[in-house]
Structures are given as C-alpha cells and as structure tokens.
C-alpha cells in the first residue's frame, strides 16, 4: 500500500532560478526501508522536506504536481498535521535541538500533541533508551558531541512513533560502531513496528543491507529506482557516481578478470559466502 505517492512533483525555492526537484514521480509503500541517494546537491534533502510539508509551508516557493503522504495532500495540510505521521531527523542536529536539556528536547513534540504527563515520561525514557543515551537525559544538547547530538535528534523523532521516519544522513557524525548501532535501531523500528523508513545516505556500505528499495536522484530528478542488488550492479548507478559497496565492487573486479560469482553480493557476509564456494572448488 502506498504511503507516499508523488506525481510530477516540481519545486523551486523562492528566488532560485531553476527547480531543486523536477517531475519526481515515485511510490513508497508502507513498511518500506528506502535508501535515497545521489550526488550532493541533487535534491535529496529538498524531497525530504516535501514529505513533511516544510516544503512548501515553511520554505514557500513554488510547488507543482501532486504529493500525498499518509493519505494527506501535502499542499492542503499544514506541517503540524503532517508531523503526526512524518518524523524528520535533520542532517545537522544543531538545526533541530534547542531545549536546555536532552529530556525536554525529546519531550517537545509530545508536549505539542498534549500527551498525558505519565505517558510522555514513558515515551521519552523509551526513546532515550532506544537511541542509547539514557544517561544524557539531563545534559544540555548544545554541550554534547556531534555524535551524541545526532542520537538526541533521532530520539526526539522516535518518541513521536511516526508512521514514516525520514533520516537525512543520521549517522554522519557517529563512529562506525555507533553508526551500526543506530542503523540497527532504525532497522528494528522498521521491521518490528512497521515504520516506513526513508534514509538519505551516501555511505551505502553501511546501510545497504537493511533496505529493500533504493532511489537514486540526479540533478533534481529520479534517475534510478529498484532493489539494492539491481541498483548496485547497474552501470548507470556507477556513472551517476553512486558509492557502490566494496562487496559489490569486489564482485565487479573479479568478473572483469574472468571470475564470476554466482550472484551479486551487497553485504560482506554474502561476498564471503560466495567466495567460499569458489575457493572450495578451486
């Protein structure tokens, strides 16, 4: 079932000479784990801003075409209505955090929903625990490290338990183990609670294994869409400059030299298993 559907969506920022996204038509189904990728400046962040109504309601500018999110026509519904369904974790956590304590920041969205106090407390505790920052509850967000701030931003969106969660490079400041933990958390929420997840990410090495749908944007348009395996093994993706996971790259290099593995690996486990077979038979 489609939870996000766009048709010929075109958007131009106020004062800009050309649209940031152009004739974008795509469907995202309920429960999908989508990776949205493409060269820097291709319109990924702008598209995400459309999904929660920041475009056009906050940024103004000119929006053409149609966009439905969780059954709501975005042009007709305000940000606060969309916020009940769509949570957005910003690329730069500093743009999102503002309260004097982590706890208050995480509670902010819930306060606006007028959630009863006890329930709110439980929800905040749960979100902090999921993001692995329970011990930071009392700390001021602006004194935390970039990675810690990123976890706070994620917790504050988690707390709202949205139908759709959009994360714009949510682990860019985190160390690899920390990033993996966050991806596990996101994946858990996606698989167990069925939250539709849209992850904007360049580092496909880390994220590929969780996704079932990859959308590649280029120059404001949707250039490719498909399963991770289809996208990573396509010549077009390489030309656009999508960062192919090393496991897939190794496959390609071997193939060029006359050794073809049985299928295209996306993860290191898959690559190791495929190589194991070839090495055994050698």
């Amino acid at each position, binding site marked *: 079932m489609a939870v996000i559907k766009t048709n010929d969506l075109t958007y131009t*920022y106020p004062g800009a000479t050309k649209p940031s996204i152009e004739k974008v038509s795509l469907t995202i189904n309920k429960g999908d784990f989508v990776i949205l*990728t*493409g*060269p*820097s*400046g*291709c319109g990924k*962040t702008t598209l995400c801003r459309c999904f929660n109504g920041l475009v056009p309601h906050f940024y103004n500018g000119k929006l053409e075409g149609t966009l439905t999110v969780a059954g709501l026509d975005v042009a007709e519904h305000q940000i606060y209505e969309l916020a009940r369904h769509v949570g957005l974790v910003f*690329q*730069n956590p*500093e743009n999102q955090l503002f309260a004097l304590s982590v706890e208050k920041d995480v509670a902010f969205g819930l306060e606006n929903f007028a959630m009863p106090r006890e329930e709110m407390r439980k929800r905040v505790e749960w979100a902090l625990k999921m993001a692995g920052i329970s011990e930071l509850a009392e700390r001021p967000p602006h*004194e935390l*490290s*970039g*990675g*810690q701030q990123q976890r706070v931003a994620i917790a504050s969106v988690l707390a709202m338990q949205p139908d759709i969660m959009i994360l714009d*490079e949510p682990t*860019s*400041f*985190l*160390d*690899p*183990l*920390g*990033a*993996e933990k966050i991806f596990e958390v996101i994946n858990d929420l996606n698989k167990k609670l069925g939250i539709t997840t849209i992850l904007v990410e*360049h*580092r496909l*090495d880390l994220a590929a294994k969780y996704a079932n749908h990859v959308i590649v944007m280029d120059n404001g348009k949707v250039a490719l869409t498909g399963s991770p395996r289809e996208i990573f093994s396509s010549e077009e993706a390489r030309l656009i*400059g*999508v*960062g*192919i*996971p*090393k*496991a897939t*790259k*190794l496959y390609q*290099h*071997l193939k060029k*030299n006359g*050794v073809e593995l049985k299928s295209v690996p996306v993860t*290191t*486990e898959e*690559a*190791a298993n495929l*190589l*194991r077979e*070839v*090495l055994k038979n*050698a």
Partner: protein
Amino acid sequence: MLEVKDLFYAYPTGLEALKGINLTVDDGEFLAVMGQNGAGKTTLVKHFNGLLKPTSGEVLVDGVSTRDVSVAKLARTVGFVFQNPDHQLFSESVEEEIAFALKNFGFEETVIEKQVTWALNLLDVLEYRKTSPFMLSGGERKRVALASILAWDPNVIILDEPTIGQDHQQKEKLQQFILQLNAQKKTVVVVTHDVEFVAECNPRVILMRQGKVLVDGKAEKILTDPELLLQASIVPPQITQIFLELADFGLPTDVIDVHVATKVLLNRLRGQS
C-alpha cells in the same frame, strides 16, 4: 613539524578530554586520527593551531610552543577545516568567504582574486561564486569551507571529518586532492570515522580512546586488527571483513584495498586450478 609532549587538556567544565598525549607529526606526513565519539580527536587537533592551549604539557609547531603565538599567526601555517561548516561560514557570498582570510593576511587584491578563483575551481564550487554559502547543500558548504582554508596555502592542513555529507564522486575527488596535497609535501591531518576512506588512502593512523592514543601505525596494520578496532568503536573496512571471514583458506588477513583483494583472490584461484 608538530610535536605534542605529554599533553593534558581539561575543559572549563572539568571534563578531562586529553590524558597524556605524545605524538610527532613530521613535515609532509599524512595522518588519520580515528576513534570513538568523545575520544578527544577534535580536542587534540584543535591544539595544533592553538585554538586550545594545553592544561599541562605542550604543543610545538615548527619548534614554537602554541602558548607563545596567537591563533591568527599560527593560522598562516596551520589551516583548520571544521567538522561542521556552519561553524566556519559567515559571509554573504562564497567569494567573500574565501577572500576573507586572504584579506586579513594582507595579500594584494590581484593575489586574492587569483587565489579565490583557484580555490573555487579546485573544490568545484566556481558556479556558486556569488551565491550565499547558506543557500548551498551540506556537502557543498563543506567544500566552500575547505576552499577558504586552502586559498592561503598553509603548510599544515587539518580536516575534521572532511567526508561527511560528501557523495561518492566528491569523496573520490577529495581523496585525490588530499593525496596530491600530501605529494606536494604538505602535512595533512584528517580526523575521520570513515574507514573506507582511510582504507583507500592508507595513511599513518592513530586510534584514540578516552583521551589517550591507543595505537599508532600504518592503516593496513591497524584497520585489519578487529580487537583493537573494537576498543575504538571502529569496524574494519568491508574488504577486510570479507578476508577475515575467509581466514581458514589461508588468505592474508591484512587486506584493505579492493584492487589488492582482487589480485590475491585471482592468484589463489588461478594458482590452484
């Protein structure tokens, strides 16, 4: 040359961020500082241009203690590109942003013009010359920040998380570019979590943990030691992960590069068939 001698640093809040660091970075070296969030990486490199002064111990830049020189003076030698470009950018246009430091250093107008154009070209942001930095995407802002430092040609370049928000192509360019700077005998210090990036560059690496240097050595030695990496919250590069899984076939386990990996596998497969 950068010399760090028994460096301790505590923030005014009392948080002890560095607990006895000893480190020498020779001219023309390429060093990657890695380690978990909060390990003290950024705190350490902020000492290299005097943004922070040691609580005890000392940091010498070309033999001079950072306590004895102003940040403004040190900046001529040591350029620092911040993790978050928004901490650095403030001008009305990209062009002004890049010209700012050059003006402060007292360069002549014609030199400034030349250096600005050179830096804009280098970082592929020439088309944004007249644009406000705040209209640009995260990745583009990052490149403007880098251009604004490179414009005055410092001998030591410190990059705090340069690959964040960069797409694959930009990352490849950045890598070429850092290797090129290094080939020109510039000292390059990169703070990064990006294991794949480090694996491709193969620099000297220090792993930090809780305010101390855990280990110091070549990338291919450090990035292929899972136990060591785990202590610093780093995971091995993908290629290494694959080879570690295949250790029972007697393949080498210190492979970090996809080209080397291909060669090793082909040799094995062809040698036996």
